[in-house]
């Protein structure tokens, strides 16, 4: 059986609830195309989401799905994966869910290298609740709770993942549609904690406040500021602030949590030693 992208989606729920020009729908398409290219049966997939606009995606997939509490998607997903290691568990989080309220679970999931695919759509604010700032909103940007500018710098999500030990890290933008799909495929195939970050327009909030001119304005910004990692690395520090590094940031080999756990706790031997009757 060969799957096509629409086999993973609830087409009857279209048009999806996202604003005109929101990047979420673009990433849904890329993810569905990636799953189809990998020909994974829908019932072997669990889409686990957090709270927020991107968190609504659980209603739109016809695969297994989970919608949890704000910031905790990775913790729920950890249980889902360990409960059935044969599943492809794909965790969809916004910037708030992944690295603001969810920061602790993000670093620990990467550290323990639980075999999950995390797709973070970063639109630099909390869109669903009206455009307040998040931990990725850039310093001095305008948001609902920073009318005179955000007084804190934003996280580099990729760097956070790198320090925490994620084995696969890639970043793209909502403009670079083929790249998104390519990285998602790599992330799903990679065993261990794999992250794909997609910088996205938020036409109604962050976009409207910082890039006036409709959805196209922020999308053109992302298109123009995206720079491949190799070129970004050669930029001087003061130049880097103006650009977004895209590409594969890390692709390492490290055994995932369950592999290590089973090696240290071999079930069969322990059962024999303990006289466990089946």
């Amino acid at each position: 059986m060969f799957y096509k992208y629409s086999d993973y989606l609830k087409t009857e729920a279209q048009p999806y609830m996202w604003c005109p020009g929101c990047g979420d729908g673009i990433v849904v398409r890329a993810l569905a195309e990636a799953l189809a290219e990998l020909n994974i049966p829908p019932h072997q997939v669990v889409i686990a989401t957090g709270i927020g606009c991107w968190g609504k995606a659980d209603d739109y997939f016809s695969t297994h799905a989970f919608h949890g509490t704000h910031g905790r998607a990775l913790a729920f997903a950890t249980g889902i994966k360990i409960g059935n290691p044969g599943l492809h568990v794909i965790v969809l989080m916004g910037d708030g869910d992944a690295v603001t309220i969810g920061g602790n679970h993000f670093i620990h999931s990467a550290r323990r290298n639980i075999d999950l695919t995390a797709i973070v759509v970063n639109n630099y604010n909390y869109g669903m609740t009206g455009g307040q700032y998040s931990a990725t909103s850039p310093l001095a940007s305008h948001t609902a709770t920073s009318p005179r500018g955000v007084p804190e710098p934003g996280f580099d999500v990729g760097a956070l993942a790198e320090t925490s030990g994620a084995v696969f890290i890639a970043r793209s933008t909502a403009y670079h549609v083929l790249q998104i799909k390519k990285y998602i495929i790599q992330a799903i195939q990679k065993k261990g904690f794999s992250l794909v970050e997609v910088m996205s327009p938020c036409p109604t909030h962050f976009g409207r406040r910082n890039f006036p001119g409709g959805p196209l304005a922020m999308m053109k910004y992302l298109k123009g500021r995206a720079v491949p990692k190799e070129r970004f690395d050669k930029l001087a520090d003061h130049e880097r602030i103006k650009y977004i590094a895209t590409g594969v940031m890390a692709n390492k080999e490290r055994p995932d949590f369950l592999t290590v756990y089973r090696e240290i706790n071999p079930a069969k031997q322990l059962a024999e030693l303990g006289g466990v009757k089946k």
Partner: protein
Amino acid sequence: MSRPKGMQLLQGNEACAWGAIDAGAGFFAGYPITPSSEIAEICARELPAYGGVYIQMEDEIAGMAAIIGASLSGKKTFTATSGPGFSLMQENLGVGIYQEVPCVIVDVQRVGPSTGLATRPAQADVMQSRWGTHGDHAIIVLSPASVKEMYYLTVRAFNLAEKYRTPVILLSDEVIGHLRENIALPEANALDIINRKQPYEEPEKYLPYKPDDDGIPPMAAYGSEYIMHASSSCHDETGCSNSKPDTNQKLLTRLRTKIYSNKEDIVQVECFGPADAETTIIAFGATSRVCKQAIVEANKKGMKVNLLRLITLWPFADEQVQAVLEKSKAVIVPEMNQGQILGEVQRVNCTNTPVYQLTRIDGELFTTAEILSKIREVAI
């Protein structure tokens, strides 16, 4: 390193861990906290031999989340904590209730609030176990009073969780958790084990939250051909979010009825002492043990007293407590808190029977003398 055979002196927490393993638990996720850590430690040591996994999450928020996730993937799961950790778990406990996910949460109560006294007993999480998570909800809470009950009530907690598709709380305390008593664990296959209802129609027809006539929906596992959608948002029978007015109305009504219409199955009490006594003590957990001793001594001295011990704290044993209030001329409610069960007793006190409060909030158990003194004061 292996399952205790024959009559053994086991610690309460140890018996709880074995109860979980014997009930079929395949996953523990939690965070160490005194006085519950022994449960985690024993699971870490023993679960792998039974094909299970122990994971120490980064906090209790994650622990509660992980046990919900693993249960949705088909495993029997549990966690163990105490007050501060129990507080952290509340939001995700609500997820478990709303999504109807079987799992067991052990709270070995200690003195609070806040950090309190980590190594001292209290019984002050009673109301939290009922209402700690926001929103309207029902919950099942069991209260063990011995090492034997730490084992058997843990098994019962898993069974109730599976039968009613709900989280179940085992509300223990530091005394019961750390007490050692003789217990002979039964043969594992001698236990009656209940498993969640599986879907029975064709996969295309399956709706994850469509209840059977008993009000409980069959539960598919992630990975099966029956597509499961579990959402923390208000959801309809498909599992998808639905904000139409009658959706939450119907859902919350069913979730409450699911528990409250089955009180006869869920609620357990123990009656101790002469049935015709007109002075009754209502107690639970560690306090009830002291009360039993006091009752034996009181009755020897000619004071007729008996005990109604609450084994199930929630749903509250309205009918059983009301029957006591109707029959008795004086009721004493001793608890290691400032009157949490007392309030419930008064709620059902339609006969205006005198109810006497006894509290202990200093991290120490009641003494037999204290209970006896109160009995002397109020006994008929």
